[in-house]
């Protein structure tokens, strides 16, 4: 196709899908948090990195492998998130939303600084679990099993989150509290607890993405800092607060980025930002967002 070897084309498409899976998981978490707390969680990248590190610690110290990490890391990091929300974030809800952004930015600096101090900025290796090694031969290319797993698994997690938020009673409470917390509280629902748990859940999603990423990108204190800015652009393009918007935009932009690497590699780092500029011109609230 267009003089590009199919091998390279599909290879980049796959890398794009993988990146898209991470974009989707991270922007989904940001969206959920933004919807209810009205803050942009700048520490999201740091929490993603913590997820990967918890997986690494579990393996090094407790001998617990990938599958345990997939379960435990989101819980541990989510719990840390809950503590942060209880200790710090909740004091800021009455103030300008910008303070939430600034606080989480400060937290991100502290967390990343501490990990960089302890582990340097070169990555630590984390192996692919034995059940997911090897690759499928699709005829036109080899598809590593682990990468296929990442794409499928994150898609499932994203869709499950979408289902819970948009189609269940719990999700209905959540959406109602997004619209009018005072009224929902008047109906006897514990909104502060819901806020806390939502933050914990969003953070847990970031950590889950971190565990998934560990075997692919290595465990690196800076892995989140590099990722989070792109995810912010993804969120702006999709429209903040839209669940399906985050998922679709995340995967789509990953693929677009992958294709750019094939056809015009110089622009692969900037293509998402260029798209963002164009989207802002046409639809300032994002592709799936509503104007406030």
């Amino acid at each position, binding site marked *: 196709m267009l003089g590009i070897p199919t091998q390279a084309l599909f290879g980049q498409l796959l890398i794009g899908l993988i990146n898209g899976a991470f974009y989707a998981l991270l922007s989904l978490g940001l969206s959920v948090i933004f919807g209810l707390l009205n803050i942009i969680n700048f520490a999201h990248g740091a929490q993603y990195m913590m997820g990967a590190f918890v997986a690494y610690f579990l393996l090094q110290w407790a001998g617990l492998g990938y599958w345990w990490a997939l379960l435990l890391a989101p819980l541990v990091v989510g719990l840390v998130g809950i503590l942060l929300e209880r200790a710090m974030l909740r004091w800021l809800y009455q103030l300008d939303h910008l303070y939430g952004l600034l606080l989480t*930015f*400060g937290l991100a600096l502290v967390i990343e600084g501490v990990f960089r101090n302890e582990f340097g900025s070169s990555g630590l290796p984390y192996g692919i679990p034995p059940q997911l090694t090897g690759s499928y031969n699709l005829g036109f290319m080899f598809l590593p099993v682990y990468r296929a797993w990442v794409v499928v698994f994150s898609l499932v997690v994203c869709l499950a989150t979408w289902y819970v938020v948009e189609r269940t009673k719990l999700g209905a409470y959540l959406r109602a509290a997004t619209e009018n917390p005072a009224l929902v509280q008047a109906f006897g629902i514990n909104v502060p607890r819901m806020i806390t748990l939502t933050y914990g859940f969003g953070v847990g999603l970031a950590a889950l993405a971190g565990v998934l990423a560990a075997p692919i990108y290595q465990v690196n204190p800076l892995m989140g800092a590099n990722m989070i800015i792109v995810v*912010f652009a993804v969120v702006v393009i999709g429209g903040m607060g839209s669940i399906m918007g985050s998922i679709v935009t995340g995967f789509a932009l990953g693929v677009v980025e992958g294709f750019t690497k094939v056809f015009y590699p110089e622009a692969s780092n900037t293509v998402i930002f260029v798209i963002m500029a164009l989207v802002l011109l046409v639809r300032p609230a994002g592709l799936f967002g509503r104007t406030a």
Partner: protein
Amino acid sequence: MSGPLRLAFAAMVVLLVAAPFVVYPVFLMKALCFALFACAFNLLIGYVGLLSFGHAAFLGGAGYGSAHAAKVWGFPPEAAILFGTLVATLLGAVIGALTIRSRGIYFANVTLAFAQMIFFFAVQAKFTGGEDGIQAVPRGTLLGVLDLRQPYVMYFTVLVIFLAGFLIVYRAIHSPFGQVLKAIRENEPRAVSLGYRAEHYKLIAFVLSATLSGLAGATKALVFQLASLTDVHWTMSGEVVLMTLLGGLGTVFGPVVGAFIMIGLENYLAQLGAWVTIVQGAIFVVCVLTFRRGVVGELGRALRTPL
């Protein structure tokens, strides 16, 4: 200026004129460049209520502009600084026009993303020298008379530029234009209903802020004879937020005080490596949780006069 402000301004000028004979001038020049940067930033957050998370683009962009003009095109320093500043004005006009319609958190997000675009451009473009940056930028002779290679000559040039920028910001916020900005900050729909075109005012403030940030960046590039990726990286955008927050958002002198504290701290902590970011982050957290008025804001409250 009113009484206490005039007094404070006079004290600041006297201190800054005397300082290079006591303190290392390069440190002071760095602090002054950042003080101007923070003042320009404060114009937006303090008086329009817009949190830009992408001001590094203007500082760094102007730095590349002036360094390139001075080194490759052989511009004299005044023309190089002017050119660098102009680059920032243009960037500010384009980015501002695209972003000014978004509000609050969206605005922070969008400016951040645009600044990152500039960063990646700077990484890849040929003339910026990628990871190396533009090194050994000649300082040259200002207006054909003043040899900027002399530390004191350079220092007083920087001081004049800083004071000029400071007074421009002061003039802007204490003018009818500034009153409209504050009205927009307090209640935008009301300001619009009174017939003010809020978006125009915000855009003008944004471009002015970008221009002055550019002036700071262009000057900084000549002082250090270097334009590098550090100045366009997003951590720089965070740093200027921190300086302004620490000094006091929406105060006249806050950004200056904040910049001096932060640069002093960085100097002091430089041996400790990654600890600098940890300390910065911790200051952020403490400021947001307990110290939202900042040093100058609290001082002004204690003295019952806005500083």
